[in-house]
C-alpha cells in the first residue's frame, strides 16, 4: 500500500486508456477504408450494369429499325420482296418431314479417331453423368450426337405443357437455378455441391442457359441429357436468351459455328425450334411460381397455359398474321401503343431515348398510381403519324436506293391476298399471346407500386409489389422465383420476400464481380439459399484485391466506351469552354460526359480513375481525349475517328452481318450486300449513288471471290464513313485492290 501502488494503478489505468484509444483510432480508420472499398464496389457494379443495359438497348434499337423497315416497306418488286423476306423470315415453320431432314444425324459419321463422349439412345443416367465428366475434361461432343440429342429433346419437349408442375411429395427437395449464360464451371459446381439430379433431387433451371459465356453448347447438352433421363424431375424454363435472334448478338450463334463449322448450321436450325418448345414456367406444389423474367398487371396464367408456345419463335419480333388491310391497320395501331414497343427511335418525331436504368426508375418515383402497361388514348393518332412519316422516309430511302417510288402507298384492297403468299399460312400468335410471353420473359421487379413499360430492356414491364400481390392472390400462390437480373450476392428478395431473384452465373461481369446462387425448396417451401463463386483464385484474394480486379475491368470497359464517343465528347467539352482556353473544370467534365453517355454513373466519384487533373482542378480536354485514343489504338495506322466509329458500331455491325448471312455460311453475296447497304446506308444519310454502291461492293470483296466475309464487311463501313467525313477522294489508310471507280462521289473506291 502506499503511493507506489496507486501510482502503479494510475499508470496501469493510463495504459489501458491509451490502448483503448489506440484501438478505437485503428478501428475508425479501418472502417473508413472499408467504406471506400464498398463504394468502389458499388460504382463498379453500376458501370457494368449500365453498359450491359446500354448494349441491350442497342440490340433492341437495331432490331426495331429492321423490323419496322420490313413491316412497313411494301416491296414494289418481287426482287425486293424476296430479299427482305429472306432477310427476316424465320423459316421455322418447317413441316415435320423437313425438320426431320434438318435433324438428320444418321448420315453423319463419327470418325474413328474421335475421342470425345459417345451417346446412345435411349439415354441412361450414366450417360448424362459421363457427359458432365467429359465436358469437365474439356472434350467436345460430336455433331452427330448433338443433333441426335436435340432431336430427342425436341420430341420430349413437344409433349410438355407450357406450365410444368413439380411436387415435393415425390422429390423431397427441389433445387432452382437461375441464369447460367454459358458458364459451364458454375453448372459443374452446382452438381458437385448440391448433387447430381435424381428422382429424389429435382431441378428447375430457369432460363438463359446460353450466350455470353463460352460453353453454352455444353450446358445445353448436359441440361437436355438430364431432362431426357429424368423427365419427371428435371425441368427447364425458357429465358429471353433462348431465342435465335438474341443469340445472333450475344455470342451463342458464334460459339456454335466456331465449334461445329459445317454442321453448325444444322444445329442452329434445330435449336431454333427446340427453343420454341421450351416450357414457359414451372409451378411447385401449386404454390411457388418459377419463371424467367417476371409478371405484369395483365399476366394471365390460364392464357399462358393454353397458348401454343411453339408459335412464339422470338420475343424480339412478332411475325404478324397476314390480314386484310383494315385488321392490320388496327393491330398496328394497337401495337404501336403497347408498352412493349414505344415509338421508333429513328423517326424524326420520337423524342424517346431510353436513358440509364436509374434515371428511368427515378421518373416513376413518387407516383403511387398504377400505370397500366397499355398506353392511353391517342395511340392511334400517334400510330398514324408514325406510319405516315415512316412512309415518307421509306419513299426517300427507296428513291435513293434506286427503286421505283409509287406515290400512292395505300393498303391493299380488302381481302386481296398479298401476291405469292404461301399456300398454307401457319397460324401466328395473337398480339395478346405474344405480349403475355414477352412479359414473363423480360419483366423486372421494381420497388414502386404499379406497372410500367420496361424501357431499359425494350420489352416487358417493371412490376411493383402490388402487381406481385395481385398475382399471388389471384392464383393462390405463396411466392415467385425469377432470374433475369445479375445480383452481387447471387440472389435477392424483394416485394416483402414475395419475389426471389436467383442468378447462378458467378463472376458474370468479371472475375470477382458477383457470387452465384441456387435455392432449395423442401415440402415446407421455405427457400434455402446456397451461394458460391466458381473460381478458386477469388477465394485466395482479399476483398481489396478482388474489388481492384473487377474495378480495373469495369474502368477499361468504360474508357473504351468513352473513346468510342470522342467526337461527341469534344463537342460537349467545347460547349463548356466558352473562352476557348482549351480547359474546362472537372465539374464541367462530369456534366459533359453524362450528356454524351447517359449511363447515370457517379462521374465525380469515378473522375480520379479516369482523369488526371491539374492542381487547380482544370482539365485540358483535348489532350485527355488524345490519351484515351492512344490507349485504344493498335499498330495499324488508323485515324482515330474511324477507329472510333468502328468501335462504336462494332457489335452492331457484326450482328447486322450475321442477320444478313442467314445460312451462317460466314459469307454474304455481293448482291445481298448491295441491297442491305442501300437500305441501311440511306438511313445513315450517306449520299451514294447506285453505281458507287456496286463499285464499293466489288472493291470490298478484297479477295475477289464474289463473296464478302465479316472482315471485309466491317472494312466497308469504315471506308464509307471516312469518305464522307473527309469529302475527298483521298487515299484510304489501307491499301486494297482497287478498280478505278467511275463514280463522281467522294472516295468510294
Amino acid at each position, binding site marked *: 500500500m502506499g503511493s507506489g501502488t496507486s501510482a502503479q494503478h494510475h499508470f496501469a489505468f493510463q495504459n489501458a486508456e491509451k*490502448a483503448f484509444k*489506440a*484501438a478505437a*483510432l485503428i478501428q475508425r480508420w479501418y472502417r473508413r*477504408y472499408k*467504406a471506400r472499398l464498398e463504394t468502389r464496389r458499388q460504382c463498379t457494379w453500376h458501370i457494368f450494369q449500365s453498359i450491359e443495359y446500354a448494349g441491350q438497348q442497342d440490340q433492341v434499337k437495331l432490331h426495331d429499325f429492321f423490323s419496322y423497315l420490313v413491316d412497313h416497306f411494301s416491296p414494289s418488286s418481287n426482287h425486293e420482296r424476296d430479299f427482305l423476306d429472306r432477310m427476316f423470315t424465320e423459316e421455322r415453320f418447317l413441316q415435320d418431314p423437313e425438320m426431320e431432314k434438318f435433324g438428320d444425324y444418321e448420315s453423319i459419321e463419327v470418325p474413328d479417331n474421335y475421342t470425345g463422349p459417345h451417346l446412345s439412345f435411349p439415354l441412361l443416367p450414366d450417360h448424362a453423368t459421363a457427359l458432365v465428366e467429359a465436358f469437365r475434361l474439356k472434350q467436345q461432343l460430336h455433331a452427330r450426337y448433338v443433333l441426335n440429342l436435340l432431336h430427342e429433346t425436341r420430341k420430349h419437349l413437344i409433349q410438355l405443357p407450357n406450365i410444368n408442375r413439380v411436387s415435393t411429395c415425390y422429390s423431397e427437395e427441389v433445387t432452382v437455378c437461375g441464369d447460367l449464360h454459358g458458364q459451364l464451371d458454375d453448372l459443374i459446381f452446382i452438381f458437385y455441391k448440391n448433387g447430381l439430379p435424381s428422382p429424389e433431387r429435382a431441378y428447375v433451371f430457369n432460363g438463359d442457359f446460353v450466350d455470353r459465356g463460352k460453353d453454352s453448347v455444353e450446358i445445353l447438352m448436359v441440361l437436355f441429357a438430364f431432362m431426357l433421363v429424368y423427365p419427371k424431375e428435371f425441368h427447364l424454363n425458357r429465358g429471353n436468351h433462348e431465342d435465335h435472334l438474341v443469340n445472333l448478338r450475344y455470342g451463342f450463334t458464334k460459339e456454335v459455328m466456331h465449334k461445329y463449322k459445317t454442321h453448325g448450321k444444322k444445329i442452329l436450325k434445330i435449336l431454333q425450334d427446340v427453343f420454341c418448345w421450351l416450357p414457359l414456367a414451372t409451378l411447385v406444389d401449386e404454390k411457388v411460381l418459377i419463371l424467367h423474367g417476371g409478371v405484369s398487371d395483365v399476366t394471365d396464367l390460364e392464357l399462358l397455359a393454353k397458348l401454343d408456345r411453339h408459335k412464339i419463335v422470338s420475343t424480339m419480333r412478332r411475325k404478324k398474321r397476314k390480314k386484310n388491310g383494315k385488321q392490320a391497320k388496327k393491330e398496328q395501331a394497337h401495337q404501336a401503343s403497347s408498352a412493349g414497343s414505344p415509338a421508333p427511335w429513328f423517326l424524326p418525331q420520337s423524342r424517346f431515348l431510353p436513358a440509364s436504368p436509374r434515371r428511368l426508375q427515378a421518373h416513376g418515383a413518387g407516383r403511387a398510381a398504377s400505370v397500366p402497361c397499355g398506353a392511353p388514348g391517342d395511340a392511334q393518332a400517334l400510330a398514324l403519324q408514325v406510319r405516315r412519316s415512316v412512309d415518307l422516309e421509306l419513299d426517300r430511302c427507296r428513291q435513293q436506293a434506286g427503286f421505283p417510288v409509287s406515290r400512292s402507298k395505300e393498303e391493299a384492297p380488302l381481302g386481296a391476298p398479298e401476291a405469292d403468299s404461301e399456300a398454307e399460312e401457319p397460324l401466328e400468335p395473337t398480339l395478346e399471346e405474344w405480349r403475355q410471353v414477352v412479359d414473363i420473359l423480360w419483366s423486372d421487379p421494381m420497388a414502386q407500386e404499379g406497372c410500367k413499360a420496361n424501357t431499359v430492356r425494350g420489352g416487358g414491364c417493371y412490376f411493383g409489389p402490388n402487381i406481385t400481390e395481385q398475382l399471388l392472390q389471384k392464383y393462390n400462390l405463396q411466392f415467385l422465383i425469377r432470374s433475369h437480373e445479375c445480383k452481387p450476392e447471387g440472389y435477392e428478395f424483394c416485394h416483402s420476400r414475395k419475389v426471389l431473384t436467383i442468378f447462378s452465373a458467378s463472376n458474370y461481369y468479371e472475375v470477382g464481380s458477383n457470387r452465384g446462387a441456387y435455392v432449395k425448396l423442401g415440402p415446407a417451401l421455405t427457400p434455402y439459399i446456397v451461394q458460391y463463386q466458381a473460381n478458386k483464385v477469388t477465394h485466395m484474394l482479399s476483398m481489396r484485391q478482388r474489388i481492384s480486379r473487377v474495378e480495373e475491368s469495369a474502368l477499361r470497359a468504360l474508357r473504351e466506351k468513352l473513346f468510342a464517343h470522342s467526337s461527341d465528347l469534344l463537342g460537349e467539352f467545347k460547349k463548356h469552354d466558352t473562352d476557348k482556353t482549351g480547359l474546362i473544370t472537372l465539374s464541367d467534365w462530369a456534366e459533359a460526359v453524362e450528356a454524351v453517355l447517359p449511363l447515370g454513373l457517379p462521374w465525380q466519384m469515378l473522375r480520379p480513375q479516369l482523369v488526371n487533373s491539374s492542381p487547380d482542378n482544370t482539365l485540358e480536354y483535348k489532350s485527355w481525349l488524345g490519351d484515351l485514343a492512344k490507349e485504344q489504338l493498335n499498330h495499324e495506322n488508323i485515324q482515330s475517328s474511324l477507329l472510333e466509329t468502328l468501335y462504336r458500331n462494332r457489335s452492331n455491325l457484326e450482328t447486322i452481318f450475321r442477320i444478313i448471312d442467314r445460312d451462317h455460311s460466314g459469307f454474304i453475296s455481293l448482291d445481298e450486300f448491295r441491297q442491305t447497304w442501300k437500305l441501311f446506308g440511306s438511313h445513315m444519310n450517306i449520299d451514294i449513288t447506285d453505281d458507287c454502291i456496286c463499285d464499293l461492293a466489288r472493291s470490298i470483296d478484297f479477295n475477289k471471290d464474289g463473296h464478302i466475309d465479316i472482315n471485309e464487311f466491317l472494312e466497308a463501313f469504315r471506308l464509307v464513313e471516312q469518305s464522307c467525313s473527309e469529302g475527298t477522294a483521298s487515299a484510304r489508310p489501307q491499301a486494297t485492290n482497287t478498280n478505278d471507280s467511275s463514280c463522281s462521289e467522294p472516295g468510294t473506291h
Partner: protein
Amino acid sequence: MTQEILLAEYHKKIKEAFEVFDHEANNTVDVREIGTIIRSLGCCPSEGELHDLIAEVEEEEPTGYIRFEKFLPVMTRILLERRYRPIPEDLLLEAFEVLDSSKRGFLLKEELIKYMTEEGEPFSQEEMEEMLSAAIHPESNSIHYKDYITMMVIDES
C-alpha cells in the same frame, strides 16, 4: 473559390455519393449505408459520432430509410466545417505502436484480434476476418503494421 461555388460543388458530390446507394432511385437510402456514404465523402467519424449523425438525419419516427432532403444539409455542414477529418499516417502508426508495447514492429494475430474485438469500438466478426485476410502474414501469423499501413495508403491513392 467563392462560397457559392464551393457549396454547389459539395452539393453535387453529396448527391452523387448518395445516389450510388439509392438502389430504388427514390432519393432514400437504407440507414445502414449512411456510414459508408459519409465515409466515402472523405470523413472519418467514429461509430459513436456516426450514431449521433444518424439520429440527426433520421425521421421523427425512424423508417429504416434516410431521405436525401434531410441528409443534404447535415452533410453539407459537415463538409464545410471539415469535421471528422481522416487520420494521418503517423497517428495511425503511433496507435499501432501503443498496442505493440514491446516495440517489436509487429503484432501477433491473436493480439490484434484481442484488441480489435475487445477494445475501442469493437469489430464484428466479419470486420475482423476481413482485416485479417489482408493484414496477416500467413507464415508468421503476424501483422507488420508499418508495411501494412504503407500498403493501405498506396491503395487509397
